[in-house]
């Protein structure tokens, strides 16, 4: 039975903790919460193919990171651990109870960091194409993403992101072009790259404290992800579920949304 009321799907900018923050919410307010965090250069609408399915089971909240979507840039847009603190502050301001957590790319690393540092409480964690935990990533692509000038640039980035020839790259490219070519967006992306990379290499960070996670973990990855490759087994904790999706690139939650939605719902339901 559907519990999704279209009128309750809201994406708006609100004042939180003295800042203007973009927030997307859906699903019954009384349902178990699920928090979604997008990746570098994205926004809450990256979850467009996921919100409906997830809202059947959960109260879904998706936050725009600083300098992305409807959230204004802050001085914390920089080193990713600063964004962990920012997310924790926003979650506290929203008075969100412990939620099922799901993040994509940078958003995944932030959620993982929040649990490592015990600044976030999670009922479960799903990492989708998680940034910062793999030795293999394409910095040049991230740099190109921050320098999009034309629709041709945007289409090229979309094709690289999707990892397989999509039917209609133009629609996604149009959205990318509109969002990432504003001066504010470019400044935010450049600030993030400057704070997290040196000469194209991710700044060294302490090893992931997988043992600090107090909730079930699953990892979802596209087998054809050319942006961030799945870490080798010895980089991941033993015994966790790793779902490698065939013919899927860096955006599994968009290009294989039905499969990812099923995995997210099942993982949350198993706790």
């Amino acid at each position, binding site marked *: *039975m559907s519990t999704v009321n*279209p009128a309750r799907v809201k994406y708006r900018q609100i004042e939180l903790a003295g800042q203007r923050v973009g927030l997307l919410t859906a699903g019954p307010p009384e349902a178990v919460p699920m928090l979604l965090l997008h990746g570098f250069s994205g926004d809450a609408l990256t979850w467009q193919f996921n919100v409906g399915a997830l809202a059947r089971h959960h109260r879904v909240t998706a936050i725009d990171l600083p300098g992305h979507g409807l959230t204004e840039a802050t001085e914390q847009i920089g080193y990713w651990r600063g964004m962990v603190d920012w997310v924790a502050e926003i979650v506290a301001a929203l008075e969100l109870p412990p939620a099922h957590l799901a993040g994509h790319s940078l958003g995944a690393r932030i959620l993982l960091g929040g649990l490592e540092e015990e600044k976030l409480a999670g009922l479960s964690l799903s990492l989708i194409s998680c940034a910062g935990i793999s030795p293999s990533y394409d910095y040049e692509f991230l740099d190109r993403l921050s320098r999009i000038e034309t629709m041709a640039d945007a289409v090229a980035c979309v094709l690289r992101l999707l990892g397989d020839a999509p039917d209609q790259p133009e629609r996604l490219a149009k959205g990318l072009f509109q969002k990432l070519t504003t001066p504010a967006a470019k400044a935010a992306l450049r600030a993030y790259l400057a704070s997290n990379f040196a000469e194209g290499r991710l700044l060294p960070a302490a090893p992931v404290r997988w043992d600090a996670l107090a909730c079930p973990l699953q990892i979802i990855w596209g087998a054809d992800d050319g942006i961030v490759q799945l870490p080798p087994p010895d980089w991941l904790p033993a015994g966790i579920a790793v779902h490698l999706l065939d013919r899927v690139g860096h955006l599994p939650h968009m290009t294989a949304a039905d499969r990812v939605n099923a995995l997210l719902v099942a993982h949350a339901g198993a706790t």
Partner: protein
Amino acid sequence: MTPTEFYAALDEMLELDPGTITGNERLEDVEAWDSLAVISFIALVDEKFDILVETEKLAAAESVGDLYALATRQKAA
């Protein structure tokens, strides 16, 4: 739900004047068809038909007619 009723629901969902959507439109020509509209459409179909749209087929939809076929074909199935 008849096509007319479906198009009226789309008008309301997209905050367009009643009668704007006629069923002949290509989605790329509907300015209001954006990521938020995708979310709202999935929720609309779920509420009206109690089904979840197959997202890969939705991503491939090119016209308003495709949207109606997507919602009603899945219901028929």
